């Protein structure tokens, strides 16, 4: 195993250990049984591989939505809003155009991502703030449309059903194919090279004659394309949207965690999406069996990402805690 892979693995192990420790303390404090909760959480999800594949597919894509712009040094926190827009577009267009609805979802996401990229590139608008504002705007627009225009004739709190469906494995294979495409894009194309140069140093990119604005807009558009498709896949799997937003809420944000636990690499994102999907399914079992809330997953992901945000922490541990 290469040194880099070994270090990545140690960092992930450290992050997971920290997450297990913190959540155990939290569960104890709140009066739940940490040992059985975590045991159920980490093992029960593995029982149904097809279910894991179905839950993982949109997560792979929402991870790519964050990952591609991140490699260009941009923070696309708008995966959440792009997923809402992609889901709405898929819901609407799949009625008449079937599978093409997926493409519509992806393209609408790309349009939104590209707009955020253009605001950043040409007007200097902070993409983190702009992303969050579009996320919340689209959250309420989705609720408006579900309750007023795309409403089910019999159930006013939910939308019409989707007009196209793919099975769990087909969805997962689609996500896997797109992850491989992202891999090729990043490492075997000129644009991918430009994205990586921009991500390592804006100044170097400008000196190398890279059109920083163009790469900013393109990487955010590609991120949005994945984000929109993530939302489309998610609503396709659930079958419809409702006014609790439980089908969609968090898909984009979880993608950030998936991308970072996967070390910002497309293949890592696939592995970490499968890991997180099994944990999410385990989380439902924890709730059924022990009454422990499934939001445990968010705590675990949050703590893991916090530890992973500081690779220097591992170096410090290896040196026995000496700052330097």
């Amino acid at each position, binding site marked *: 195993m290469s040194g880099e892979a070994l270090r990545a693995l140690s960092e992930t192990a450290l992050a997971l250990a920290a997450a297990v420790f913190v959540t155990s303390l*939290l569960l104890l404090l*709140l*009066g*739940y049984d940490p040992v059985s909760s975590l045991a159920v959480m980490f093992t029960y999800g593995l029982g149904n591989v097809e279910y894991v594949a179905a839950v993982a597919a949109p997560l792979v894509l929402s991870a790519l939505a964050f990952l591609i712009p991140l490699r260009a040094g941009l*923070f696309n*926190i708008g995966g959440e809003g792009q997923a809402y827009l992609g889901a709405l577009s898929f819901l609407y267009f799949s009625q008449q155009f079937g599978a093409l609805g997926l493409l519509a979802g992806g393209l609408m996401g790309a349009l939104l991502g590209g707009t955020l990229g253009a*605001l950043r590139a040409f*007007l*200097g*608008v*902070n993409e*983190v*703030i*702009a992303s*969050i*504002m*579009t*996320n*919340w*705007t689209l959250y*309420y*627009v989705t*609720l*408006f449309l579900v*309750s007023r225009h795309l409403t089910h004739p019999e159930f006013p709190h939910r939308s019409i059903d989707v007009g196209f469906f793919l099975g769990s494995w087909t969805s997962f294979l689609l996500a896997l194919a797109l992850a491989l495409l992202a891999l090729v894009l990043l490492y075997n194309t000129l644009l991918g090279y430009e994205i990586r140069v921009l991500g390592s140093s804006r100044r170097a990119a400008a000196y190398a004659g890279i059109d920083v604005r163009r790469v900013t807009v393109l990487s955010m558009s590609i991120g949005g394309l994945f984000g929109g498709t993530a939302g489309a896949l998610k609503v396709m799997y659930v079958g419809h949207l409702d006014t609790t937003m439980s089908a969609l809420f968090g898909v984009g*944000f979880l993608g*950030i*965690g998936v991308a*970072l636990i996967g070390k910002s690499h497309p293949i890592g994102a696939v592995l970490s999406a499968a890991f997180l999907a099994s944990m999410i399914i385990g989380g439902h079992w924890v709730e059924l069996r022990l009454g422990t*809330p499934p*939001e*445990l*997953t*968010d*705590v*675990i*992901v*949050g*703590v893991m*990402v*916090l530890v*992973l*945000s*500081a690779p*220097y*922490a591992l170096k*410090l541990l290896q040196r026995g805690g000496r*700052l330097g």
Partner: protein
Amino acid sequence: MVEAELWLFVLISSLSYMTPILLATIGEIITERSGIVNVGIEGILLSSAFASVATSFFSGSMLLGVLAGTLAGALLGALFGLFAVYLRADQIIAGLAINMASYGFTVLGLIAIWGHHGASPRVEGQLPYFSIGQSTVPLLTLLAILIAVLSWFFLFRTRTGLALRACGEEPRAADAMGVNTYRYRIAATTLGGTLAGLGGAFLALEIAGVFTRGMSAGMGFIALANVAFSGWNPLPAVFGAYVFGFLSAAADALQQEVGYAYLLKTLPYLGTLAITVLTARRSRAPLRLGVPYARE
């Protein structure tokens, strides 16, 4: 309601909505002036809102609730500072992590304590206020404005404030001048968290009167927008917070008047986006903002 009365009501209730935004903004200005950007204030608002409601629920005291919220903010600010300063974390990622963990942790607590997935019971009691005509203005709103003035004085009229700003502009030079950059920065994130914590307590105890799942709903990011809008200066931040607070207050009041609740709820976010786009590049951020600093 007569139209003029409605708008007067909105203008006064904007003062309430302004308060948590202003407190979080001032905290973030101090943090960013030291060279650290903390997007985790969204999660800090949420965690401190939860801590304040849980504490006032168990103790029966609103004041203890405010203290608990503020303390929770201070702890999270210090934790973030530990990662951002000493562990040289990617600040945006660490901040997002605080947001994710806060969301999960507060929902966990909501269900564990009250057995409910959406909202806590209403808090009993009333924070101190004073009256203008028929309307009331919370005392903490005045305090927040006072904190803005004091922070301006601290940042721009004291030697410590100058040293703190030096950490954000040229940490190496600051270090060479004998300013302990690490200590200034972690003090700044802790102070920033403390103010956001006070804001979170106000949001839950005064504005909402309950804790609800994910109740910060982007307010931390509206505060981040206000930081840039006000040019990293606490005095214009008062005006900015009022403008952003007005959007929320107007959305709330109009919902009750005209319906279209879902569409009106987009107003604070679309308004913030519009203001951010229109005023981008107007002011300059601290030179070394967000860049981890390692002492030689």
